Every structure is written in structure tokens, then in C-alpha cells.
């Protein structure tokens, strides 16, 4: 099942946040969205998730308009991780992850097994009994990701994640993105907003470059993550070297004078 959005336009207090953006998330693909701060990445994700109504354009999940699908049904097909997670009550880690399985409507034992599996995949077993509020930022983020992954069942077709690994250490960044890659390979359509070019190149098969609310380029990873596109996108000098088919990036300010 694909998530398809056409001509998305969002205006907020006079500013154009998204300007006629077209996105198609095909089953089995992992799309990474790259762009500078304020480019409209989160707004795009919110609209694709059905959290915000676009001023123009539409979002379709399969052959239905997204907003016409009942909330619980939508939650079974579409799992989303937003950037802010305002949980401020002392649940333990396992309880938080269990909440994610709510839309699946599993029995108690099934639900536990399902979440236990999820905790294991993100190396969270040791934290399971810990108070969520006592965790570090990166750990909390990993728990929230585990919660979103716990929402994924047989019907889940689309995952949308807004900077899901921004606070994590290197190992867990890879661990988490590998899980997303596995879900994509199993047939889900996955969209991830990232800032790390190396991670994007390692796990994405498609890339969407967003700047000032407009799509600068989108397509296969190697076709879009080119020096010229990335340089224009971020207003920095980006160099790309292919090492065994995998791009390596280095970047500097365009007017950089190297300190010796």
C-alpha cells in the first residue's frame, strides 16, 4: 500500500510552509527527508500523518483519502513518531512500549510478547523496569521509537518518523535505522527525517530534499545526494567521494578559511 500526497500546500500566519509538495511513499521503500532547519520537514510529516490539514492538496493511503479513515483503523495502518514527546508521568519503560500496541487490540499475553520482542530489538530489555522519566534523552527517544514500532502489526503499511535518532549514540542510531530498514524490506513504506548524511546514505533507497517548503530534488539515493544538490540544499560546500559504491561526505562553509 502506498501513501501518496499531491500538491500539498500549508500556510501558517502568512508564511508558506509547504509549497505544492508531491510525495509518494511506495511499499518496500525507505525515504529519507533532508533539509535545513525550518524547511518544512516536520510540517510535511504532520500533514502526511493526518495531524494537520493542508490548505491545498490531499493525502491518500492506498485508495482512500487519509482523513476519511477512522482513527483506530488509521492507527493500525500508519505508525508515526513525532519529534516532541511530552510524556511527564512516571510510567516504566515497558508500560510506555505497551501503550504503543493499543491499536492492535491484542490480548494481554500476546501484547506482552509482542512488546518484549520490540524491547529486545532495540536493546531495551535492561531498561524495561526503569522509570521513563529517569532516563537520558537518548534512552527516552529509543523507548519512544520502541513504542512506535510496537504499534506495527500485520496491517501496518506506512511509518513516518521525525528525527527518531537525533539524541542517540552512534551504535543505537544504527540499531534503530536497521530496524526501520528491515520493516521497509518486509514491505512497509517508511519515511524518516534525518540530519546525518552518512546515515541517510547508508539506509535510504530514496531521498527527498526539502528547502523553504519546496522539493529541491527527490529520487534514488545516489541520484539526489550529489555534491551540487546537497550544496544548494544546505548552503555549504559538500564533497562526495564514492568508496566501494557508498558515498562519503565532507562539508565546509563555502567561504571557509582553514585555521592552521
Amino acid at each position: 500500500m502506498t501513501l501518496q500526497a499531491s500538491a500539498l500546500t500549508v500556510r501558517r500566519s502568512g508564511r508558506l510552509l509547504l509549497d505544492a509538495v508531491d510525495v509518494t511513499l511506495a511499499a518496500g521503500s525507505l525515504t529519507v527527508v533532508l533539509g535545513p532547519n525550518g524547511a518544512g520537514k516536520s510540517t510535511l510529516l504532520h500533514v502526511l500523518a493526518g495531524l494537520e490539514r493542508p490548505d491545498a492538496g490531499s493525502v491518500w493511503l492506498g485508495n482512500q483519502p487519509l482523513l476519511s479513515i477512522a482513527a483506530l483503523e488509521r492507527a493500525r495502518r500508519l505508525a508515526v513518531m513525532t519529534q516532541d514527546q511530552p510524556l511527564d508521568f512516571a510510567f516504566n519503560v515497558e508500560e510506555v512500549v505497551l501503550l504503543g500496541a493499543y491499536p492492535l487490540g491484542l490480548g494481554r499475553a500476546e501484547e506482552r510478547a509482542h512488546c518484549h520482542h520490540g524491547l529486545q530489538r532495540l536493546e531495551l530489555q535492561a531498561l524495561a523496569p526503569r522509570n521513563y522519566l529517569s532516563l537520558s534523552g537518548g534512552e527516552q527517544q529509543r523507548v519512544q521509537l520502541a513504542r512506535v514500532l510496537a504499534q506495527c502489526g500485520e496491517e501496518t503499511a506506512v511509518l513516518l518518523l521525525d528525527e527518531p535518532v537525533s539524541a542517540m549514540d552512534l551504535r543505537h542510531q544504527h540499531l534503530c535505522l536497521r530496524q526501520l530498514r528491515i520493516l521497509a524490506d518486509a514491505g512497509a513504506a517508511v519515511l524518516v527525517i534525518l540530519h546525518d548524511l552518512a546515515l541517510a546514505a547508508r539506509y535510504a533507497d530514496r531521498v527527498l530534499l526539502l528547502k523553504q517548503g519546496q522539493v529541491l530534488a527527490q529520487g534514488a539515493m545516489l541520484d539526489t545526494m550529489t555534491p551540487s544538490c546537497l550544496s544548494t540544499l544546505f548552503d555549504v560546500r559538500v564533497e562526495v567521494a564514492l568508496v566501494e559504491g557508498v558515498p562519503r561526505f565532507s562539508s565546509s562553509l563555502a567561504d571557509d578559511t582553514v585555521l592552521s
Partner: protein
Amino acid sequence: MSARRLGLLLWLLLLPVVLTSLWVGPVSLSSDALLQPGSRDWLILFELRLPRLVMSLAAGAILAITGASIQALFRNSLADPGLIGISAGAALAAVAVLVFGGAWLLGPFGPVLVPLAAFAGGLLVTALVLHIARTPRGVSVTTMLLAGIALNSIAAAAIGVMKYFSDELSLRQVTFWLLGNLHSTDWSSALLLLVIGGPVLLLLLREGQQLNLLLLGESQARLLGVVTSRLRRRLVLLVALGVGTVVSLGGLIGFIGLVVPHLVRLLCGPDNRALLPLSALLGALLLTLADILARLLVSPAELPIGIVTALIGGPFFLFMILYRQRGRA
């Protein structure tokens, strides 16, 4: 402590508290007189103390469970029907009816007129605070509490103004009632509370899991399949109905809605599926205890129960604020 254990413990504690509440009072009852229907002691027990016990149990349970619900709704453990002005709004509307109701109060709909007004007042204030404090990014705690302060003072001032228009009798009624008391409870008010409060309690008990999801954040709850707008409307209605009825019958009884859920959370975590029933139970227990204290402390006179709950709850609230500031990291 596990929720099951705490529940068991509370049920066990309830029995002695219930018996004490029936036994303790300005008149000491003799056990054999109780076996004679119509005797003085029999009347005191069944016409005064029993309805009063029913009232304190039901009012405590309702205040505690509405407190827990409103805390989930605002996603903040400092929210309380008293602090954010719901009780004051209910009281204002109730006083207005008491003072200006006149002949209406003596009519056939008299007994439900005051609760109805209190419900409307509570509903209005809850909706208003929610509207003021809700931003696209969630509920602002500061705004919520500030709005509560403003609404509380407005209500207090308006009640003050209305006192000028009231005659001696209703003035005394209003003053005494505002401090919160279960002194004048008879069977008709106890039953009215049961009839309205019972369904409120049962309906709120069903919302545990949805409230848990709401704690993750409004967007998160929506993404997990909760129709948050409808949930919010249900909660506001039920809370206003519960608080309004208690206020109209028992006056302003503060802090139960704040302290009780907090204690339960400290003992067995924030899961609303356990928190709601346990809060109701502990609320019933504590308010009945407070009522016993109200009768004992200055016996044979009687303290308004609102004063007792404020004397215990106020310092506890300060402690909570301190704990939040220091303890949480």
C-alpha cells in the same frame, strides 16, 4: 506496591472506618437501643449517620476520581477541580440559585435546581480553562493555573456581591455551606448524589486506557487511534457533572482530588486503569476519615469538613511542589 495489593488493603481499611463513622458523634449510641426501630438511637443511626456516611463515601470517591481524570486531561498532576476553578464555578452558580431562586427552590424541581446550576457552572469553567490553556503544542500548566487563580477570584468576588442581596437565612446557609460540610445530609441528598455520581464514577472508570494514551501527548494519542476531541468532551462533561453535584450538596471540599491520586501514583504508578478505581476507593476512605475528624475535633460542635481537608491537604500540596522541584531529575 502492586495495584491489587493496595486495592485489597484499602477495602480492608474501609470496614473499620465505616463502622467508626457510624459509631462516633456527639451522641454515643447504646447497642441495644439500635435494635428497636423508632428509638432515638435508631433514628440517629439510620436517619443521620448512615446517609452522612453514604455521602462522605460517594463524595470522596467522586472528588478523587474526577481529580485523577482532570489530571490526565490536562496531562499534569497539579490539576485539581478546586485549583483550576471548577468547584468555584459550580459554587457560584449554586449560590446564585440559592440567593435568587426564591419560590423556584420550593417548587417540585427545587431539590435538583441547585445541583443542576452547579453542574452548569462547573461545565462552563472547565471548558473555559481548557480553552484558555490549550495551545497547539499541548496544555500550558502555567496558563492553566493562572486561569484558575483568576476564575477563583472572580467567583469569590461574585459570591461576595451576592451575599449583599441575600437575607439572613440564606446568608448563613451560604457561608456555612461554602466551607464544605456534610452536616445537613439527609437521605434525599445522599440518594441524589448516588443517582448522579454513580454513573459518573462508572463511566470514568472505563476511560483508563484512553487516559493513559492521552498522557503520551495529544498528537500521540490521536496517532494511536484515540478520537481526542470526543474523549475531551466526555471527560469535561463527566467531571463537571461529578464535581458540580458534590459541590451543590457538600459545598467546597478541597484537595481530595489533588492529594488522593497523587498518593496512589506514589504507591503504584501512573497507570490510569489502576489509578482511577484506587483513587475512588482511597478518596471515599479519606473523606470519611476527615468527616470523623470534623465531628471529633471540636466536639460537641463540628468543624466544616472543607476546613479539615484544607488543613491536611494544603501542607501536602506544598510538600508536593517542593518534591517536584527537588526530587525529580
